[in-house]
């Protein structure tokens, strides 16, 4: 089995995004960029599957600016065998990304696409499901446990009601939730080794993927601030104030 792991370059999860002065987007100049944390979990899972002997090759793919090579090098250092960068300056929306990933998947013939359930920039939570739809194959989203058996995979999914288990036939798309695993730290020798692993750069225009309808992105604004209140000194004061606010009778 070959596994394709899409990797998105996003603002590091420790950094609070700020709206630019003209409201056209968020500040990215001089801001630390990282692998989308959910994708990192997907990559970790792919590596564990390979380490168990259930996969032969892991291909990391990113769609984005030339700088995304950096995140792909990190993916290679973690344990991906090779990487592909589909280069574009444009911010790719989920439906477009799904079409591009479908094309790469066709070229590579991977049986499993393992990816984050959402990217922490646009928080769309769409691309994996859209890829599965366009490919006409099953999806197992928000996965917190994953096993394989006889050409099928069994996924435990974190849903609002609890934990749902579904079985889907391979090939398939799996999207990962936070509790699936804890990604490993990259070691120095692996960073050195990763420099020699293949990273194939392709131009989006040369891929022959037609761009679908897209959302027109307008103004960005900070959310309304929730002002902190005050501290009370005792339970009596707390109860009195809750009654005064009418939330306790």
């Amino acid at each position, binding site marked *: 089995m070959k596994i394709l792991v899409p990797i998105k370059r996003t603002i590091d999860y420790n950094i609070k995004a700020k709206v630019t002065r003209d409201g056209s987007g968020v500040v990215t100049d001089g801001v630390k960029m990282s692998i989308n944390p959910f994708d990192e979990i997907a990559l970790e899972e792919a590596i564990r599957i390979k380490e168990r002997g259930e996969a032969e090759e892991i291909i990391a793919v990113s769609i984005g600016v030339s700088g995304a090579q950096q995140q792909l090098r990190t993916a290679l250092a973690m344990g991906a065998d090779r990487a592909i960068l589909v280069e574009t300056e444009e911010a790719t929306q*989920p439906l477009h990304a799904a079409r591009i990933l479908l094309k790469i998947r066709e070229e590579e013939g991977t049986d499993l696409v393992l990816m984050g359930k959402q990217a922490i920039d646009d928080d769309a939570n769409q691309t994996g499901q859209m890829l599965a739809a366009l490919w006409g194959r099953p999806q197992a989203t928000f996965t917190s446990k994953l096993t394989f058996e006889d050409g099928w995979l069994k996924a435990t999914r974190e*849903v*609002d009601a609890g*934990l749902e288990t579904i079985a889907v036939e391979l090939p398939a798309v799996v999207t990962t939730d936070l509790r699936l695993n804890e990604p490993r730290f990259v070691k120095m020798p692996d960073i050195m080794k990763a420099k020699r692993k293949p990273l194939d750069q392709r131009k989006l225009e040369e891929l022959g993927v037609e761009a679908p309808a897209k959302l027109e992105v307008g103004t960005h604004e900070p959310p309304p601030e929730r002002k902190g209140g005050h501290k009370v000194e005792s339970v009596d004061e707390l109860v009195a104030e809750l009654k005064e606010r009418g939330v306790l009778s």
Partner: protein
Amino acid sequence: MSRTLLIAEHDGKQLNPSTAKALTGALAVGHPVDIAVFAADAGPVAEQAASLEGADKVLKVERAENEHPLAATLAPQIEALAADYSHVFMPSTTFGKDVMPRAAALLGSPQVSDIMEVLDAHSFKRPIYANNVIVTVKAPSDTVVTGTIRTASFKDAPAGGQAEITDKSLDVELPGHSRFVELEVHKSDRPDLQSAQRVVSGGRGVGNKENFEIIYRIADKLGAGVGASRAAVDAGFVPNDMQVGQTGKIVAPELYMCFGISGAIQHVTGIKDAGTIVAVNKDPDAPIFEIADIGLVGDLFEIIPELEEKLG
């Protein structure tokens, strides 16, 4: 054709409260709204959906494959049904998040996720970057609009409606590559987190699974739903379905009380829509106090028993 389709969320017997909230969001577009109930036996749920005020028609789509909500089988049916609609919405719950994008892709529609405000029939506001930024997006007018509706941003559509219920059969071939195996539900008689008027949450400060009993006790005293921070879920104090926050559930109760929660951004994101936020933490510098309406510094194991007593 200006007509909106809302897909009902349910467990086969009960309509999920997310549907009533999503209906309010769907109605804000300004077109008549039909609710579709996909089920093996849609009868009871369809009745409940029909009683929501504002629903125009309720469509029962019954077939054996609809016993469990699998995205791979629902999406092609939604695609077929969408032919009569300008807008298709689902609640932004794990159900809607799983199914809607699959249907949207089949329809060639760029989906609007987590709609928090409807500006006009094609323009919406939605949160990005873990709710640190709100963006306005405009959906194209030449394809069907698809979206998920952020339930914490809309009130329940009230009961009192009498929508007409009709059967709808769809001639769609469904794939056999996806099967439901089981659903492990954490049974609870307490109010549902996402629709409760009061919610009590515990965090890492609660210490362990046994200690969480004190959180359940005060919640029962208040008639509240019970939530937890990601730290408490990761540590195994409580099951995943109780997680409140960016990657868990977004709640919007009148009263939110949290104990032993430091206030990581990912948790705060899930409670910003609450009416009154009360925080109890022994660290006076915990970030939760920056957003809490009422803070009380102290040991939750002393404060909760006192609170129980004072509540009578």
